[in-house]
C-alpha cells in the first residue's frame, strides 16, 4: 500500500508542478484565448494532482495540502521535465507537447490498473490530457510552420526540452514492486516515439539527441528549478502552518 502511495505521489507531483508552472501564464498569454486554454490545462493538471495526492496521503494519514505544502525538495518525486521554467511560449508548448503525449500513453494504460482508485483517476484524466495533447500539437505545428522567427524559437525550445524526455521512461524498483498496478514507463516509449515523431515530421522538426539529462526526480534529486518554484508555492501556507483557508 505504501508502494502504491509512492507511485501515486510521483503522478501527483508531476501534475502539480506542471499546474504551478502553467498557472503563471494566466494573464500573461499571447492572446486571451490562450489565457483560457492554458488555464484549462493547468486546472486539469491541478485536478489530477489533487486526486493522486489525496490518494497517496490516505496511506500516510495526510491530506493533499500536507503533501503539497509541507514537503521539502528531496521529498518531491516530480520528473525534471515538469520542473523546467516556462521560458518563452515555444518552450512551454514543447514541454507540453512532450508531457501530454507521455501522460496520454500513461493514463490510457493506468485506466486498466489493478488498483481501482488509480484506474478511476486515470480513466477520467485521460480524456483531459487528450485535449492537452491536441492543443500542444496544433501549436507546435503553427509555431514550426508559422514565421521564420517562430520556427527558430521552436527549434531552440526542442533542443532545450528534449534532453529531459528520457527520464520519463525509466523503470525502477518501485515499478517492479507494483506489477499490474503501475504502468511500466519503458513500455510507453515506442508509442510515444511513434506519435511524437510523426508530428515532428509534419512540423519539419527533428529532436536532438545531443544531451540526455540524468534526471533523478523519482529519487528526490531535482533540477535547480524546483527549489524556487516550491519557495513561491509554499510560502503562505508555511508562514501559517496548520491553519485552514
Amino acid at each position, binding site marked *: 500500500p505504501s508502494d502504491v502511495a509512492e507511485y501515486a505521489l510521483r503522478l501527483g507531483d508531476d501534475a502539480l508542478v506542471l499546474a504551478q508552472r502553467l498557472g503563471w501564464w*494566466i494573464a500573461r498569454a499571447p492572446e486571451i484565448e490562450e489565457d*483560457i486554454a492554458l*488555464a484549462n490545462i493547468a486546472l486539469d493538471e491541478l485536478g489530477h494532482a489533487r486526486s493522486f495526492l489525496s490518494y497517496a496521503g490516505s496511506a500516510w494519514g495526510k491530506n493533499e495540502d500536507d503533501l503539497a505544502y509541507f514537503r521539502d525538495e528531496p521529498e518531491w518525486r516530480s520528473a525534471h521535465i515538469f520542473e523546467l521554467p516556462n521560458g518563452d511560449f515555444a518552450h512551454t508548448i514543447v514541454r507540453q507537447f512532450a508531457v501530454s503525449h507521455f501522460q496520454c500513453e500513461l493514463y490510457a494504460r493506468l485506466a486498466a490498473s489493478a488498483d481501482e482508485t488509480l484506474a478511476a483517476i486515470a480513466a477520467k484524466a485521460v480524456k483531459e490530457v487528450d485535449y492537452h495533447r491536441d492543443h500542444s500539437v496544433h501549436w507546435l505545428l503553427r509555431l514550426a510552420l508559422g514565421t521564420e522567427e517562430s520556427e527558430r524559437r521552436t527549434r531552440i525550445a526542442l533542443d532545450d526540452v528534449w534532453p529531459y524526455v528520457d527520464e520519463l521512461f525509466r523503470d525502477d524498483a518501485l515499478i517492479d514492486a507494483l506489477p499490474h498496478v503501475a504502468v511500466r514507463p519503458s513500455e510507453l516509449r515506442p508509442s510515444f516515439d511513434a506519435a511524437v515523431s510523426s508530428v515532428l515530421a509534419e512540423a519539419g522538426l527533428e529532436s536532438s539527441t545531443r544531451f540526455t539529462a540524468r534526471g533523478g526526480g523519482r529519487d528526490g534529486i531535482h533540477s535547480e528549478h524546483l527549489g524556487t518554484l516550491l519557495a513561491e508555492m509554499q510560502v503562505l501556507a508555511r508562514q501559517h502552518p496548520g491553519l*485552514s483557508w
Partner: protein
Amino acid sequence: ADGRTRFEELIAADDRVEPSDWMPEAYRKTLVRQISQHAHSEVIGMQPEANWIGRAPSLKRKAILMAKVQDEAGHGLYLYSAAQTLGTDRDTMFEQLIAGSAKYSSIFNYLTPTWADMGSIGWLVDGAAICNQVPLCRASYGPYGRAMVRICKEESFHQRQGFEILLSLMAGTPEQRAMAQESVNRWYWPALMMFGPPDDESPNSQQSMAWNIKRLSNDGLRQRFIDMLVPQAEVLGVTLPDPDLRWNEERGHYDHGPLDWDEFHEVLAGRGQANAQRLERRRQAHEDGAWVREAARAYAERMAARREERFEKVAS
C-alpha cells in the same frame, strides 16, 4: 420603415436593438466606449488576482482562483465580441488600452498585498460589479445584454467564493481574522466608488438611461449595494469601515458617510497604486506574444492557401 423610427420604436417598447438595426452614431459610440471599457476591466482585472495563483494557501483555493481568473478572460472575450458587432475590432481596442487612450475600472489599480484580498475582491468588487451588471442584462443593445446575462451568472458564483474565503479567515486564528478585516478596510471605499461619481456629477448618465443602456442611477446602485453588504458583513463578523453607517428607518435604507472623491480622481488621473504596473504588464504580455500571434496568422494563411490549391485541383 425608416431606421431611426424603428430604433425609436424599439427603445420605446424596451426591446433589443440588434447589430443589423440602424442606430444613432452617438448610441453606437457610447456602447463601444462602455463595452470596451468593460472588456478591458475584465482583462486588467485578471492581474490583481493572478498575483496569488502561485501562492494560494491550499490546492482547493488555488483551483478556485485559477478558474476565477480564467472566467474573467472569458468575460473579456464575450465583451470584445459584443463590441466587435458595433464595428470596432479587438486589435484596435487592445491598442487603445495599451496606449492608455481607453479606460478600465479604477478598482483594479489597487494592490493585493495579502491573501485576504482574494476574499475582498470577490465579496466587495464582484459584489459591486453584480449590482452594476444585473440591470445591464436588460440593456437595449442585444449582444451586450446577452453577454451580461452569461457574465452575471458567473459573477454571483465569484462573489460567493470571495465571501467564503473571508468566512474561512474569520473562522480562523486572530491573525487570520485581522488579515480579513484589514483587507476589507482597504477595499470597502474603493468598491463603493465603482458605481461612479454622484448622480449630479455624472453627465452622461441621463442619455444612457434614455437609451435603456443604463437602468439605475449611480447613487441608487450604490445604495442597493450597501443595503446588501451590511447583513453579509454581520454574518462574516467584519466591520465595515464607515462610522456613519446606520439604518435609516424612514428611508428604509442605510445611511453612509461621505466618499472621498479626491481619492477617486487621483486614481483616475494615473496616481493610484498600480496604474503603471497594470498597463506595463498588459503591454509586456502583448509584446511578448506578438511573434506567436504572427506565427498563428502566417500558419492560417498557409493552410488556407493549401486548401484553395487542393480545391482548384479537384475542380479542374
